[in-house]
């Protein structure tokens, strides 16, 4: 069992996805779900039970699944495909790119086991490259909500977007951050703390490490401007630039390789619009290994302590 933060009640965001699919299925009969033999894990079994005639299990064949969903979307369906992030973004990558993204079809690619949340499954099931890959494909919207309530809103919003959405989900439980449900809008960062000393931009499960770091930094008198950048594409440049204009230093935190993902997206924006000292927290271009989630975060330099160190250091580089 993965240990989670502070023993709070937690929910894997894949569970929120599975539950929301059923809700969505009731609201809209154009919603169809494709699955590749891991419905108990991706939680699409809930939809399968509720709407067996709109659920299609294609077996362990993600490439076929992705392109079948394209066919369904061409016929006016709102298609969801579910698998693990490793397979959704890489095994079926070119199907996603050519059959889904190129014709801009309403195929929503909901993938679990983001990054180290796959913990003891090891490297084969830890997607650490997917954000970079998917983000580089035109027409894609790329989202990783941090908790169950925001996942619910992201799923609902994805169905309405006329084009493909990549929805990155966690294997392990996440605390509830947005109790009443956040004011969630795809493409709009959520400011979790306001501060003027350093900006921390986090995505997905790393939002909780960043929150932890921000609280500890506050004790030292360091004001953190903390953004939950749940949508990595399109990136909320406005919120990012407004923040760094005040703070002049930024740390990014993602459960992903620092190459290609959130850190890269933020660096691209800042490099073009407002060069700012920054540090990227994430896997430092290395594969990880099996282990408990917390142990992996600590070992690979991604826990709150490392974010705190990074924040202090980057503040020292302010011009």
């Amino acid at each position, binding site marked *: 069992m993965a240990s989670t933060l502070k023993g709070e009640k937690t929910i894997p965001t894949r569970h929120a996805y599975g539950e929301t699919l059923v809700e969505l299925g009731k609201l809209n009969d154009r919603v*169809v779900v494709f699955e590749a033999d891991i419905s108990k894990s991706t939680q699409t079994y809930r939809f399968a039970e509720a709407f067996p*005639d*709109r659920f*299609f299990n*294609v*077996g362990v*064949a993600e*490439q*076929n*699944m*992705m*392109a*079948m*969903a*394209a*066919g*369904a*979307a*061409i*016929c*006016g*369906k709102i*298609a969801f495909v579910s698998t693990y992030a490793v397979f959704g973004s890489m095994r079926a990558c*070119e*199907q996603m790119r*050519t*059959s889904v993204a*190129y*014709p*801009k079809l309403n195929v929503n690619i909901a993938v679990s086991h983001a990054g180290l949340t796959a913990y003891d499954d090891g490297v084969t099931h830890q997607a650490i490259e997917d954000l970079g890959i998917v983000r580089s494909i035109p027409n894609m919207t790329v989202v990783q909500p941090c908790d169950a309530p925001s996942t619910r809103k992201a799923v609902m919003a994805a169905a309405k977007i006329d084009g493909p959405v990549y929805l990155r989900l966690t294997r392990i439980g996440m605390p509830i951050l947005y109790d009443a449900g956040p004011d969630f809008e795809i493409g709009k960062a959520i400011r979790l703390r306001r501060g003027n000393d350093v900006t921390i931009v986090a995505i997905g499960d790393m939002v909780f490490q960043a929150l932890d770091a921000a609280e500890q930094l506050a004790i030292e008198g360091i004001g953190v401007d903390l953004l939950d950048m749940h949508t990595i594409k399109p990136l909320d440049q406005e919120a990012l630039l407004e923040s760094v204009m005040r703070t002049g230093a930024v740390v990014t935190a993602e459960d992903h390789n620092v190459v290609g993902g959130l850190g890269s997206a933020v660096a691209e924006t800042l490099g073009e619009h407002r060069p700012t000292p920054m540090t990227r927290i994430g896997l430092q271009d290395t594969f990880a290994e099996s282990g408990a989630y917390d142990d992996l975060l600590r070992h690979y330099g991604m826990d709150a302590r490392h974010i705190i160190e990074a924040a202090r250091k980057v503040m020292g580089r302010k011009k």
Partner: protein
Amino acid sequence: MLREKEHDIEKLHEIARQLRIDSLRMIHRAGGGHPGGSLSAADLVTALYFHEMNLCPQEPDWPDRDRFIMSKGHGCPVLYAALARLGYFDRSHLETLRKFGSILQGHPDMRKTPGLDSTSGSLGQGLSVGLGMALMGLRDQKPYRVFVMLGCGELDEGQIWEAAMSGAKFRVANLTAIVDYNRLQLDGTNDQVMPLEPLDDKWRSFGWNALRIDGHDMRAILDALHRAAAHDQGPTVIIAKTIKGKGVSFMEDQLNWHGVAPSTEQLEIALAELDP
């Protein structure tokens, strides 16, 4: 208004001949493209678009229309020629194939070309897309059928066989795959590059109704399409033996005519053969 179906075999032959001429002219003008696979598929495309399929060119998105996917997307010139002839767009566009700003891309783009049911051309994906369409049709009790044309070299792709298994599982009797079996792929014959036989046994063992025909015998093509329609137990594959470059003597069965445009002189000789 439904497009009137052509039943006269001679007239269908004549249409196929025109599509071959249009294809070669287009590829010549574009200075690039795939003549061999366009000519080999011309009779099959003619049978589908001018006889078998329920179409409404005035309303390309008519929900109950039959669908066609040129999964071997490099054969699109002959499909574009058919669509233009049916009035999906003006014939003048044929001259713009592969040119900047054209509605006719080098491989099919459903967002640019009226009448295209799918984007295609990355080999191996079209059968899955067609299967998704057919499955939705079954689920929604729609009357339409879905046709997917596959290249023989395309059958090397693993995804084809994923889709084949799924097609049998979901019993999509409204799905018909057609293999343009010209036996030549880019680097050589199927036997040299990746042997496919026994091909009908392969499809049958995957749960498909498999028919083997001469893909240039119009009566045989129409008969196979009718038999596919009558088969209600699952999907059908029509393995149509064809000749790459069919209709132009110096292109027939020639590997090097897979992906090069004819010169002006070669075009003239080809057109003289096709238009005696």
